[in-house]
């Protein structure tokens, strides 16, 4: 679907420069300029050299304590050091600085069209137009968010006919996309299950650790990615989950694991559920790609529904950033499936108590968009179609990349993991040095853990990418 290019002057003026992965001309704002020296000082590892900068001497520590300043004209914050550059944001910034024609940004975590343009879903534009015409007010939402949204999101996740919904055993609170919802869950865990550890996959989305750390929740890792097979280390995963103390919390990706793209099979999910029951573990599902992974909302929710059907109490964090393209509006939800409606009421009330001193009540705009889309059968069908198209484009690109790799690589290396992995991201199995080669030699930007974003790839570039991957894999150790 061709994306519309029109962008009003007011929008351009209002937005100024935005450090995202997109390559759109924007006015350079002063803060970006200020940042130049610092960005270089904390350079993306792919950069060949670090330019001298006035700020090059800044020590990079993420935390620092500060001695009290006594003199009145010295700031309290003189000891505050520069935070390290975000490992993912830094990729896009480095990409922007690259002048090569062949450059390719596979660090981007947002969907791109075949023309490599950002994409606002048609159904979202429709919903916004409807909202603009309706001229609704902008009053505070309740702390738990928009009721219509909460109802819609729980039903999307679990199925409208799910017994747990009918029995009112789901506490749902609107959250600030996946991050905010995870943070509410983590804060709840810290307060009500003090000392309980959360197990996260190795690897996992980088921000999981930050969220747990800032919430004060201890965590450890379970094996997940097997570099030898470029697939799931299922035995390691099961062993580590079994090894954890009874009553731990297991963070699971509902579908389209980030960053590897590797999901358990249905049989493997059953086994994981067996172990959780055996060990009285509480699963915490991160569902950021429902509908976006396979194209089917129901299929992508099957892991969660499987656990719920077995009577397991669990947390689920949802995000509408990718599947509805609502990245910037920060819309998601934390759901807690529990044993009784009384418990659900109590849990919801305490989630609200955690949200209130964080932001009081969640933003309305994204919630209304979702409620409008889901609440209107025509729009809901249109959404499904657009989601299938997005998921379809990713699958097509995976297929082309696989074909190119298999054709060009004369050895017997099995590249089928490209097809088996699912969702926006793919773990190529390239190591850091090889990933650096991708950037330095081929101007392909990716994260140094070997992750590429298929969302930033189009058919036209698959052959080129295959060349780059093959070169990096075989010629760099």
């Amino acid at each position, binding site marked *: 679907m061709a994306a519309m290019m029109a962008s009003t002057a007011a929008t351009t003026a209002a937005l100024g420069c*935005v450090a995202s992965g997109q390559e759109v001309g924007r006015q350079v704002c002063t*803060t970006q300029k200020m940042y130049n020296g610092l960005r270089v000082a904390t350079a993306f590892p792919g950069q060949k050299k670090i330019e001298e900068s006035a700020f090059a001497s800044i020590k990079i520590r993420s935390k620092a304590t500060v001695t009290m300043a006594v003199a009145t004209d010295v700031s309290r914050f003189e000891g505050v*050091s*520069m935070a390290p550059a975000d490992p993912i944001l830094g990729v896009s910034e480095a990409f922007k600085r690259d002048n090569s024609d062949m450059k390719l940004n596979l660090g981007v975590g947002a969907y791109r069209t075949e023309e490599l343009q950002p994409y606002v879903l048609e159904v979202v534009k429709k919903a916004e137009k409807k909202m603009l015409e309706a001229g609704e007010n902008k009053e505070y939402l309740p702390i738990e968010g928009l009721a219509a949204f909460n109802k819609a999101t729980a039903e999307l996740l679990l199925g409208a006919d799910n017994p747990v919904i009918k029995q009112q*055993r789901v506490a749902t609170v609107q959250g600030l996309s996946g991050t905010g919802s995870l943070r509410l869950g983590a804060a709840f865990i810290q307060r009500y299950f003090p000392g309980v550890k959360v197990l996260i996959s190795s690897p996992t989305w980088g921000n999981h650790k930050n969220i747990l750390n800032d919430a004060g929740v201890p965590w450890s890792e379970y094996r997940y990615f097997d570099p030898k097979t470029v697939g799931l280390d299922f035995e390691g995963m099961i062993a580590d989950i079994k090894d954890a103390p009874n009553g731990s919390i297991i963070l699971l990706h509902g579908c389209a694991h980030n960053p590897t793209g590797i999901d358990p099979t249905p049989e493997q999910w059953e086994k994981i559920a067996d172990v959780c029951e055996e060990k009285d573990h509480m699963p915490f599902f991160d569902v950021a790609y429902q509908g976006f992974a396979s194209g089917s909302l129901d299929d992508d929710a099957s892991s969660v529904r499987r656990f719920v059907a077995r009577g397991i109490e669990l947390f689920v964090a949802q995000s509408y950033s990718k599947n509805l393209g609502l990245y910037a*509006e920060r819309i998601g939800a934390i759901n807690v499936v529990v044993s009784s409606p009384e418990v659900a009421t*109590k849990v919801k009330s305490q989630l609200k108590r955690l949200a209130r001193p964080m932001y009081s009540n969640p933003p309305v705009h994204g919630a209304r968009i979702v409620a409008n889309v889901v609440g209107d059968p025509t729009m809901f069908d249109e959404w499904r179609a657009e989601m299938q198209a997005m998921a379809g484009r990713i699958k097509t690109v995976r297929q082309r990349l696989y074909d190119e790799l298999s054709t060009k690589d004369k050895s017997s290396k099995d590249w089928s993991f490209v097809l088996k992995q699912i969702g926006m991201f793919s773990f190529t199995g390239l190591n850091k040095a090889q990933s650096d080669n991708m950037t330095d030699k081929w101007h392909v930007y990716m994260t140094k853990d070997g992750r590429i974003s298929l969302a930033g790839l189009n058919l036209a570039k698959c052959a080129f990418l295959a060349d780059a991957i093959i070169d990096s894999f075989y010629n760099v150790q």
Partner: protein
Amino acid sequence: MAALARRSRRFMSSSSSSSAAAVASSGSWWKDVQPAARDPILGVTEAFLADTHPSKMNVGVGAYRTDEGKPLVLECVRQAERHIAGSNFMEYLPMGGSVVFNDHSMKLAYGEEASVLADKRVAGIQALSGTGACRLFADFQRRFKPESHIFIPVPTWANHHNIWRDAHVPQHTFRYYDPVTKGLDFAGLMEDVKRAPEASVFLLHACAHNPTGVDPSPEQWKEISALFKEKNHFALFDMAYQGFASGDTNRDAQAIRIFLDDGHQVACAQSFAKNMGLYGQRVGCLSVVCDDTQQAVAVKSQLQQIARPMYSNPPLHGALIVSTILGDPDLKALWHTEVKGMADRIITMRELLKKNLVEAGSHLNWQHITDQIGMFCFSGLNPEQVDRLTSQFHIYLTRNGRISMAGINSNNVEYLANAIHEVTREEEAEKAA
């Protein structure tokens, strides 16, 4: 590793069918979860909504209402939304939010010509309205000045206590409101500021103090600033009502400007919930004045690190509206007119309420109603009187006696005055005796 009490059986065994009914489990994960008390402020609206009485009044939550008792979306906001409609951009903002929005926001707070802005030494990040801005500061304070405490006025917006508590920053209070005069306890304030340890961190309401409506005069602000200098205290200004208090955005920010003129490096938590009517959009800004550009960049980077594991990056829509309005001379002028309109209606309601109380026959002193400024009036009613207002007259307000003037209009002001007069008859009798 903390020893973990063995969780007893889950609520369903694995052998039961998928649609078996739930079995309540007393020994489950949730045994320590108690029902949370209703939020004292937002809970008022919940109760109000549940009431079916035809004369019910909501003077609880601080959201502006027109004289018809309806929520108001400003015309400048509607126009801004039409400008930005159909935008092809919905991708993540940076962690620090929209840079253009931050610039506009800081100019509004500190002044277009502020030297701290010209020197580029203010770290500003878009935040989730005033709450989010305060929380970012509280977490930042905890992380970078872990030995510091926060000094909060008595009384204050209830959520301030929640914010610094959840940020694990110890709290102290300083005297502010004098219940006898229903005005500022200036002597008490200055004494407490003086007695606080050197280099303490203070939360100050820049204008339209919530919940009392009592603000220091410019002269008093100057004295406070001088004492702060002497004691090397740090000031965080919570500014949720700029423009909404007097109708003039510069006048409402004068406390901050006084502090800046005296060379203080302040922080400011701004909200656009009330003055632009963007309540549900959650748009605000936290800014911190630093020594120089380098430090401002470092501080901003650390604030972003706090935002990232909370919500990653802030919502776009509200920031776009604000930027569009403040960036367009016509829209900005329209906004100034509209915000003055809101402030003027509030001031008119104050006058009407006082007048109606007198006409109802009350002989108590209601001068504070017109002395106080902003959205709220600290009526002086005690909790029992408040409870009677609610149970008998279906008037909803917070139990500290705070009345949201925005909920009053020419149709209900008489009803309210009569009700207040009713519940204070005993007090009046006591005074007369």
